[in-house]
């Protein structure tokens, strides 16, 4: 009797609390205000969209073995970086601390530590981008800017992130996890290239220490028509009238007010300008995120397209197509896509209408590129000021094939960032 006296008030209290909790949950859940988005998905917008973690991915892996010697892991049957990324998912309970700052000694001690794999981004990215490749495990970590990730192959509780600016080293402590899969990657079928990681004009740089054997390629290209992009980019609901202007080699499509698309038929490049208001955010994470959205909107093939660089002055983000893990450069230094925010009411993307799709068997055999030291020395002997070189890359030069408009030749070459431009070693050597 006494118990039942409290039963009803108690049940009532619980019922009230439950209804309040559910109300709060329902009211605060944004899904409530969202309509079902599936209906908006149109079958015409099919394309292979690659996730952020694919585009904003490290592009090179360097292994330092037990005696301290280093090699670049070059793709052969597998994409080495992709295989390593696959193992980076079980990082539980991460805590980050700054290990050192402004100390080159500490920076290189961590970068070149024995038994480790270093993943290099092509340019600075933010922690939010790293988070995409570690299955969201780093979402709570501060949004530091970094260039490299160091994965020890014999210590399962630590990772390091390196920022080239100020030579900062961050240490991430994680729960013990298995290193078996990471060590298995090293046993896969891949080519290795002796290298060392040191300073070039005060910039951390991967030096190739011996001559490099590189495979020239012939590629079948994916040739996209102007129409595809016109209907994709200019066909928004508010633009009915598209006008066309033709000049000698350029065709300009516009919708009078806010969108413009220019095709150049001689170099098969296109430029898309969007004069609608944009967020005009300047920080790295939003720039990269915005740029990614624009990349998706363009609808260019994203196969092997990776983030290459971000230039803070011009606010342009460059993407390149990678072959065997090496970027492709066109004769003017351009890559595959570049996006740029000019101001709060202008964004511009440049992209190539032709993109490499299928590699073709080549009987050319390997060509040899000199080591980094040799390359720099030869440039110096030619009269170039080596101090002006801030970056070097092994890349592929894009040239039209003489036999067919559907084929291109990719020739291996050294590329140096000289006077704020990417120039090929061959072109520099042939200049005088």
């Amino acid at each position, binding site marked *: 009797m006494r118990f039942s006296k409290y039963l*009803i*008030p108690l*049940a*009532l209290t619980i*019922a*009230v609390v*439950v*209804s309040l909790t*559910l*109300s709060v*949950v*329902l009211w605060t*859940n944004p*899904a*409530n205000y*969202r309509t*079902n*988005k*599936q209906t908006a*998905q149109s*079958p015409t917008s*099919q*394309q*292979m969209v690659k996730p952020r973690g694919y585009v904003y991915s490290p592009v090179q892996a360097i292994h330092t073995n037990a005696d301290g010697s280093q090699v670049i892991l070059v*793709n*052969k*049957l*597998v*994409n080495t970086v992709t295989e390593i990324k696959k193992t980076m998912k079980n990082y539980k309970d991460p805590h980050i601390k700054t290990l050192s700052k402004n100390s080159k000694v500490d920076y290189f001690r961590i970068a070149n530590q024995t038994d480790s794999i270093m993943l290099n981004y092509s340019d600075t990215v933010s922690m939010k981008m790293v988070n995409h490749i570690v299955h969201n495990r780093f979402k709570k970590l501060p949004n530091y800017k970094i260039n490299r990730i160091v994965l020890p192959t014999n210590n399962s509780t630590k990772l390091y992130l390196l920022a080239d600016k100020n030579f900062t080293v961050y240490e991430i402590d994680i729960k013990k996890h298995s290193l078996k899969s990471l060590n298995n990657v090293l046993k896969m079928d891949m080519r290795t290239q002796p290298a060392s990681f040191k300073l070039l004009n005060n910039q951390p740089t991967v030096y190739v220490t011996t001559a490099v054997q590189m495979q020239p390629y012939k590629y*079948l290209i*994916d040739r996209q028509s102007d129409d595809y992009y016109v209907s994709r980019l200019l066909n928004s609901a508010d633009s009915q009238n598209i006008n066309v202007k033709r000049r000698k080699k350029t065709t300009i499509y516009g919708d009078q007010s806010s969108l413009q698309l220019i095709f150049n038929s001689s170099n098969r490049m296109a430029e898309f300008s969007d004069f609608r208001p944009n967020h005009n955010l300047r920080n790295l994470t939003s720039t990269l995120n915005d740029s990614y959205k624009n990349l998706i909107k363009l609808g260019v*093939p994203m*196969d*092997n397209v990776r983030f290459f660089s971000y230039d803070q002055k011009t606010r342009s983000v460059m993407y390149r197509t990678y*072959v*065997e893990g090496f970027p492709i450069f066109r004769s003017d230094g351009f890559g595959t896509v570049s996006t740029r925010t000019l101001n709060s009411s202008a964004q511009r993307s440049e992209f190539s209408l032709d993109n490499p*799709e*299928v*590699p*073709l*068997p080549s009987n050319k055999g390997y060509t040899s590129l000199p080591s980094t030291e040799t390359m720099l020395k030869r440039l110096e002997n030619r009269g170039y000021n080596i101090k002006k070189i801030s970056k070097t890359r092994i890349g592929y030069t894009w040239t039209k094939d003489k036999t067919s408009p559907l084929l291109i030749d990719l020739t291996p070459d050294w590329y140096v960032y000289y006077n704020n431009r990417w120039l090929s070693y061959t072109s520099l050597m042939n200049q005088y």
Partner: protein
Amino acid sequence: MNFRRIEIIFLVTFIAIDIFLFGMFKKNMNMQADNVSQGDSDSVIVKEMRNDQIKVGNLSKKNAYAFYISGEQSNVLRNQMGQLTNQTPQYVGHELESELKQPINVDQNNPQKTINKLLTDSTFVLFGDQYVYSKDLSTSRNIVYNQKAMGSSIYSSEAQIRFTLNSDHQIVSYTQSYLEGIKSLREKSETISETRALIWLYQYNEIPNNTTVAWTNLGYTKLLSIDGDRVFIPTWIIAIRPQNSTQIQLKRINAFTGGIIKETDENLKNSQSSMD
């Protein structure tokens, strides 16, 4: 006493409200799942397909990995056919046609069991260990083996063994083609899943209503030839069969780009039309 009654009324009301809110909450959760995961929108389209009377079995959503590969059409079969015994081989247009002097009995229901053993004998068939049985392309009178390549197999008449059987389940002859030096042209890359391949084919309006998807396979099919070299791309090969018909149509979806490959390989079609 009155207060107690009020309490009971309140309790009943609040429980009713709780049930209602909980129902809302669950509905919300489902809606969220629909919005968030791509997989669910895929299954919606698959449902749509089933509504169009297109019969599909269980589809895999797993992405596989594949290569671009090449192989060379060479005369190695002609050069080595001297070692074949108990048959009369002829080399015609890069194909080895051979008639057996004595027909060989095979298992009626599982002919591949017998043939798999025979293929290890290099005096019976050259490079026999490099071929794998294709149940989908085989018929009761025509047993097809495809050449293996990089963890999958090639669907092409240029890399195939076709055994001809008589009505007594005996092999009487075979035709073989072979590609030499199969190699990858680029590192391994991710392909689209079986579900996505089928959805795209459906969205290209390539699957008519009232059809059955007989089988799907991820294999290599020919993209182009350059002199003696053949370039193959990973392809989802989808066989569809209109209801009330036995004729199978093959559709191909590029497993890297998801694009449809329109021009069907003539020879692949030929081997199909012999189906009864």
